[in-house]
């Protein structure tokens, strides 16, 4: 086991997963209490994916994210305050309120942004990898996307180029079994790993609920990317607990309550990792509860802060259409 796998790392992973869950619970509440403008897509249930992967990355490494992007954002190092401010359209948000949930980005931590076009960031991630190779920086880029996004032709185009040019990019498909209101099996023929392999890309399948398994694989592939052995593909089996978006409440017609509670009961990434930490005597139950509480309080404080924060000035509406160019 590498140096990263020590108590500190375990704890950070646990905390990051709990932080994502706490963030999402609050975001959901904001929606339910009609304080959130628009809709948002909850990441709850998939925490081990974002955390397992992002804990294998440095802040120089890049990720691209999706419409279901809060988890990636938190995992890559973002703060609650700026995130909630963004979700509420406030000036102190990561994007000054201009992006919102579906476009949240945090370039300081290497998050090139969520994307409201399914599959829309596959080219961006691959281009970031091209930069790494051309500029000689050693950053690795992880492209997160869902099972539904594998139906976008763009993916095959960029996989081909990534393979031809040996780019340091990892395509990470979070297969949560659904693309909106449709089961993956109904919209994906054949095999996802075979699709990547057909381009000569090494493909892996991993339990996306097991943060240690995800992290171990991600660390190994990230290192290999840095040595010029990329690109890689990972299919992560996971599950989203909420509806497709916060407003998708009555979903029996496409997914059974039994299925949902089964995943939550048996395969929750936080509960299971918590159990493991206790089994390994790394943490006690009380310590874990303490962490949860502390993070809960943080999240609530951030929500309160964000609710009170100010909106951008109306003049901002026509700012940032174009970047300045030094003459």
């Amino acid at each position, binding site marked *: 086991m590498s140096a990263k796998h020590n108590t500190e790392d375990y704890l950070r992973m646990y905390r990051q997963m709990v932080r994502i869950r706490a963030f999402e619970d609050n975001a959901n509440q904001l929606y339910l209490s009609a304080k959130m403008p628009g809709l948002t897509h909850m990441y709850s249930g998939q925490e081990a994916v974002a955390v397992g992967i992002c804990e294998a990355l440095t802040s120089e490494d890049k990720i691209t994210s999706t419409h279901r992007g809060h988890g990636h954002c938190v995992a890559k190092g973002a703060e609650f305050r700026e995130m909630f401010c963004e979700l509420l*359209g406030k000036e102190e948000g990561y994007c000054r309120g*201009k992006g919102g949930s*579906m476009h949240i980005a945090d370039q300081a931590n290497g998050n090139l942004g969520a994307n409201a076009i399914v*599959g829309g960031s596959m080219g961006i991630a691959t281009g970031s990898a091209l930069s790494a190779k051309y500029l000689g920086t050693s950053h690795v880029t992880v492209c997160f996307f869902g099972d539904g996004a594998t139906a976008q032709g763009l993916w095959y185009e960029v996989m081909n180029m990534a393979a031809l040019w040996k780019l340091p990019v990892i395509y990470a498909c979070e297969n949560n079994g659904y693309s*909106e209101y449709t089961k993956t099996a109904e919209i994906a023929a054949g095999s996802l790993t075979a699709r990547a392999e057909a381009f000569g890309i090494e493909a892996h399948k991993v339990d996306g609920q097991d943060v240690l398994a995800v992290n171990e694989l991600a660390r190994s592939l990230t290192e290999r990317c840095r040595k010029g052995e990329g690109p890689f593909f990972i299919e992560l089996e996971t599950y989203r607990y909420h509806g497709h978006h916060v407003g998708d409440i009555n979903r029996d017609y496409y997914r059974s309550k039994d299925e949902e509670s089964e995943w939550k009961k048996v395969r929750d990434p936080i509960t299971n990792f918590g159990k493991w930490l206790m089994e390994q005597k790394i943490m006690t139950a009380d310590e874990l509860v303490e962490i949860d509480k502390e993070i809960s309080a943080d999240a609530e404080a951030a929500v309160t802060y964000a609710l009170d924060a100010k909106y951008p000035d109306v003049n*901002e*509406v026509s700012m940032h259409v174009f970047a300045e160019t030094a003459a």
Partner: protein
Amino acid sequence: MTRQITLSKAVNEAIAEEMRRDPSVILLGEDVAEAGTPFKVLSGLVEEFGMDRIIDTPISEPGFMGIAVGAAMTGCRPIVDLMFGDFLYLIMDQLCNQAAKTHYMSGGKLNVPLVLRTNMGATRRSAAQHSQSLQALVAHVPGLKVAMPSSAYEAKGLMKTAIRDNNPVVIFEDKLMYNDKAEVPEEEYLIPFGKANIKREGRDVTLVATSSMVQVAEKAAEILSRENISAEVIDPRTLVPFDEETILQSVKKTSRAIVIDEGHQSFGVTAEIAARISEKAFYHLDAPVIRMGAMDVPVPFSPALEDITVPTPDGVVENARRICRGELVHAA
């Protein structure tokens, strides 16, 4: 017999009626079947018409658009459901290089009778990639017809006409209007393409408005009427074909015009309509034609910003006052 139904229901009825009438009509899109689309516009159709005709697709917009083109060339009359108008950018090649040009390039031998139904409209807090109003882009491409229903009544009548048309037709529904109700007859009716609708008669200024901007114009006209300014509101209903005649006649009567559309203003729909009026009613105009499009900025998420990007009744009222009072909107 009339009754009030939502725009959503009107679209649903139009499609159901045409599918009953013509077995070659099929519909493809993401989550159109059981889910009836995220906006629930198509609820119930799969139950009546089955999965062979209401076809759930993967998230492959260029792919299913291309499939629709091929199906249209070989005996089907596909309706393509594009969940958000912003995704038009993904299917432009299949729509504009293929569907739009096939009839012409084949010297009239191949037809592409298909309907692309999609939406437009901001202020839904959906941010820059789910809020665009891209009608100008498709209206610029020869071979495409473009309809912009302004109420449930238009939505039904234009949809039925679109499905029977032998050409690719793009229909933009305003996603904020799905729950708006209007009187819609029980009896069948169709609304012909290329015939503008004079929503409200007036003498002093012509308000040409598309889609939900018709409501904006009507509200403005109502306010203006209290100030003794009589505004005529015209809904072109279709951008292609475009009923220039009705609009020119109105402007020749009122001598003033404001054009309102929710697409970005520059190089947008308001430019075309304003240019035509300015050219062809030139000697009748008492004041420059005023254009009111959305601001030339990506649609911002923040409610504080988003709402000011689109034309409002107050904005229209202000502009109408100025030109009716002879104030120059743009100092020469």
